[in-house]
């Protein structure tokens, strides 16, 4: 071991083989010796390599050196800091070294995995290590920030995922505000008849959960409501919720249903009945709605539009109708938030060649779900658009709007199973012939492929190929009066024209139309597809980059009911973990304003993605709330006065790192 260089902190360099992940492309021993020889003058007093630095033996190696050699800085050249920064900082902390004096160099993701020439890769690894050695010498010890946690939780979205999350938190004894924008909770699941793969009745398994959510004393259920503003930070969010006027006094209403029975105004129900059925202007979306109180749909109510009617008011036995009700704004404090806002459905009309909206007997999957439902518009009868004729042949088209570069590139994951469910239901209820037009069959979950086998056995015909067109233009006599599905059957390598009576379009899932705005409201981002973005797609799929904001269910991407429920429960577990810790520790990587240098130019004021920046008009300067700031650096780069600095990314650190990298070349 070499002598310490005066004025330089004592630095240890640890280079990992990562099995052969790194050592197959980087000459690790050579890097180790080089660091000892060439970086000795920069303060490196020890340089070691190890097969797996992250193993407990590897970590002990570092801890021992810190204690015995009095290391003041540690550099670990291994995988990405995303994976193991915590591990190695933890090791340093255990040995009594401030964790922020330890830095990682990614020589796996940024070197061994992306190079094919060992000489070059080894040289690059050295250069990056030299940069980090210079940088780490400039690091200052930092202390984590601690914030107390408010034990209340906000859950946004009352689909199955949000319901699950709310129940888990409430049953653990903590208060939940469950905010749902529609008149009832339940989400998409409330619209289905049967659920794959077990074919149990959707309402039968969902409504008990809904009732539980409606009656749990720890849950404040706010339906017909939306979050309008969020300020604060993990542990202390301040949320304003708009309770839209229902025009029904919830204290008096018993949910008897006389009002909607008497209401003269029928309205096409685009939401719950997917446009296939009607509801009244005063309504609950469905019989088992939770809560049971109806809402008056103001734009469609005869009284609101024409000034006379009030049939509901006249007949209500408890005088619960209140035409003067106003929107209410509620202010609540919560420590954590779970967003479970679900999905929208792809607009089938966009694929004009499938004729939806033009050819009456082309239906969307959601229309078909309602048609199958015993309490739906057809009373569970599967019929053509005329409401009478039973189909003899039904074609189900997969991947409508999914896996298509013209619409959405991703697979909506549930529509293969949902199409198989439909094939089964059609067969069971009408005995019709069923064709499934699929590109690939995706049935990869527990009991899913078995269900596919079952539908195969039931005699459904499968055509592998992407449907080009659905048309009513007959070319042959037997095509007259039919819908013709034009498809290339890729298994036999032929174009086929298959006449059917009814076409079902398995439309894909899309992010909520307002997902971006919702994301902005809560300070989280969306992926390029528009789904809420996870902190880590594999290892942390229900957290976001904003502390205290969790995501669950289809809001994070297409998934089935079991997946949505699991994520709801997982998000709840995270929240409970946070609540039980009573305090949250925040990474001290934060931006701060030097108030003497800030001129109040206000360049930075609108830039913070986490709303951490505010202007103090009386002082003429800008401030950053350290608990809100996530250390993204946007404002640091923007401030023309150089008045904002980011801990961990000072000019000195960055330039030292650049110097080191250049020196190492």
């Amino acid at each position, binding site marked *: 071991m070499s002598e310490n260089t005066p004025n330089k902190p004592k630095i240890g360099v640890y280079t990992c083989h990562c099995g052969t992940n790194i050592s197959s492309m980087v000459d690790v021993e050579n890097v180790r010796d080089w660091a000892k020889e060439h970086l000795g003058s920069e303060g490196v007093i020890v340089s070691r390599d190890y097969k797996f630095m992250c193993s407990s033996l590897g970590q002990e190696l570092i801890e021992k050196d810190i204690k015995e050699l009095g290391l003041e800085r540690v550099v670990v050249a291994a995988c990405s800091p995303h994976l193991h920064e915590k591990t190695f900082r933890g090791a340093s902390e255990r040995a009594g070294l401030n964790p922020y004096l330890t830095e990682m160099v990614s020589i796996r993701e940024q070197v061994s995995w992306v190079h094919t020439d060992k000489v070059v890769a080894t040289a690059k690894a050295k250069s990056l290590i030299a940069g980090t050695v210079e940088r780490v010498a400039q690091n200052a010890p930092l202390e984590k920030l601690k914030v107390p946690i408010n034990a209340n939780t906000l859950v946004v979205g009352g689909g199955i995922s949000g319901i699950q999350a709310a129940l888990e938190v409430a049953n653990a004894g903590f208060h939940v505000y469950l905010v749902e924008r529609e008149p009832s909770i339940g989400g998409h699941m409330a619209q289905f008849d049967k659920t794959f793969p077990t074919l149990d009745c959707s309402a039968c398994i969902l409504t008990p959960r809904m009732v539980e959510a409606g009656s749990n004393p720890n849950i404040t259920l706010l339906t017909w409501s939306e979050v309008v503003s969020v300020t604060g930070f993990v542990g202390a969010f301040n949320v304003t919720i708009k309770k839209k006027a229902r025009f029904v006094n919830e204290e008096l209403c018993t949910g008897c249903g006389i009002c909607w029975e008497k209401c003269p105004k029928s309205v096409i129900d685009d939401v719950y009945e997917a446009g296939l059925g009607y509801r009244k202007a005063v309504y609950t979306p469905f019989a088992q709605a939770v809560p049971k109180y109806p809402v008056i749909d103001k734009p469609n109510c005869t009284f609101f539009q024409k000034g006379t009617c009030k049939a509901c008011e006249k007949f209500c036995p408890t005088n619960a109708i209140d035409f003067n009700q106003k929107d209410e704004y509620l202010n609540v404090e919560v420590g954590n938030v779970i967003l479970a806002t679900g999905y929208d459905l792809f607009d089938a009309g966009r694929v004009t060649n499938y004729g939806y909206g033009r050819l009456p007997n082309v239906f969307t999957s959601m229309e078909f779900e309602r048609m199958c439902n015993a309490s739906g518009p057809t009373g569970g009868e599967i019929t053509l658009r005329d409401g009478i004729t039973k189909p003899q042949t039904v074609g189900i088209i997969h991947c409508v709007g999914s896996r298509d570069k013209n619409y959405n590139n991703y697979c909506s994951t549930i529509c293969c199973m949902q199409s198989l469910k439909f094939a089964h239901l059609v067969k069971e209820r009408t005995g019709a012939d069923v064709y499934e037009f699929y590109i690939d069959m995706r049935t990869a979950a527990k009991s899913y492929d078995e269900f596919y086998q079952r539908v195969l056995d039931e005699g459904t015909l499968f055509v592998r190929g992407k449907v080009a067109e659905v048309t009513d233009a007959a070319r042959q006599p037997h095509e007259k009066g039919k819908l013709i599905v034009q498809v290339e059957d890729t298994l036999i390598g032929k174009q086929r024209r298959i006449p059917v009576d009814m076409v079902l379009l398995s439309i894909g899932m899309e992010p909520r139309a307002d997902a971006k705005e919702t994301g902005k409201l809560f300070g989280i981002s969306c992926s390029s597809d528009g789904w809420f973005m996870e902190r880590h797609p594999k290892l942390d799929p229900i957290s976001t980059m904003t502390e205290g904001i969790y995501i669950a269910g289809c809001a994070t991407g297409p998934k089935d009911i079991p997946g949505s429920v699991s994520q709801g429960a997982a998000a709840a577990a995270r929240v409970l973990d946070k609540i039980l810790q009573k305090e949250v520790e925040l990474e001290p990587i934060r931006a701060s304003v030097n108030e*003497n*240098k*800030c001129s109040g*130019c*206000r*360049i930075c004021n609108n830039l913070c993605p986490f709303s951490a920046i505010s202007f103090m008009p009386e002082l003429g300067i800008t401030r950053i709330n350290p608990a809100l700031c996530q250390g993204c650096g946007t404002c640091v780069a923007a*401030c*023309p006065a150089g*008045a904002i600095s980011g801990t961990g990314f000072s000019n000195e650190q960055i330039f030292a790192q650049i110097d080191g990298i250049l020196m190492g070349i």
Partner: protein
Amino acid sequence: MSNKPKFAMYWAASCGGCEIAVLNIHEKILDVDANFDVVFWPVAMDAKYKDVEEMEDKSILLTLFNGSMRNDENEKIAHLMRRKSQILVSFGSCATEGCVPGLANLFPVNEIMDVAFHTVTTDNPNNILPQTSFEVPEGTLHLPTMNSRVKTLAQVVDVDYYMPGCPPESHQIAAVVDLVIQVLQGKAQLPPKGSVIGAGNSTVCDECPRARNVKMIKAFHRIQEVAPLDPTLCILEQGVPCNGPATRSGCNARCPRVGAQCIGCYGPAEGVLDYGARLVTAFASVVDAKEPAEIESILDGIPDPTGQFYRFNLADSLMRASTSNWKKNGH
């Protein structure tokens, strides 16, 4: 010879404005005379380099050095003045950041010569260009040789203090003169070596009285295209690129006060390494558009980015010069 402390002022590559600014301190100039013995000041009195060379090292107390390092003569005198002075002040924008002469760092010297000696108004049929040495019967005459790039004073010699401004404001010069006199009288202390003196610690916006809001810029205009300019609202918010947010305070926001955008003559704020880069990121941050095409068209409203962002600071920026100018002398 009196035993008053000695004062010198020198101009390297500069316009002369800094000298005027010093004379512009009015009756304070009498204080200079009362407290100092002016030993060398080419613009004000006759003196020869030889006289300075003969002085004892460190015999001059205070030298205000203005002008950038354009040629070998500039550099030679910089070294000389450094040797002879106790306190060497990099005075004005040219000495401190290269200023307008520094913009020449984007072009090789021969191109600059070609352009300068072949303008429309230059009558040069024989294509005569300046020579660095020329034989006459009396012997060889020498002219200074241009460096491949303009340097700041501090890039050539060790500097004690920096005084920004193009030119430094007279009230700031007066204040600095006062300070030095007070130090001589034992009533004050010099700031730490390397400090910026005669300027503020914030930016021009800090001294600017114009009202400002959250900035959202939809278009950039040249000032003459915005008529009339709102006299009370931030000029930048009106779409005229004002460099005030990035420029060191000290001038009392001279330009914005009279309805012109700040062009940045006081240089970067404390601790800023690259003035232009700071401004570019700042302006880019407040461009109010999402689509690439729209962003492009907004940015087209700044037709001369180098002039806008680096008019004073190019020679002291991180890049300092174009590659060809770097390669020439290898430094």
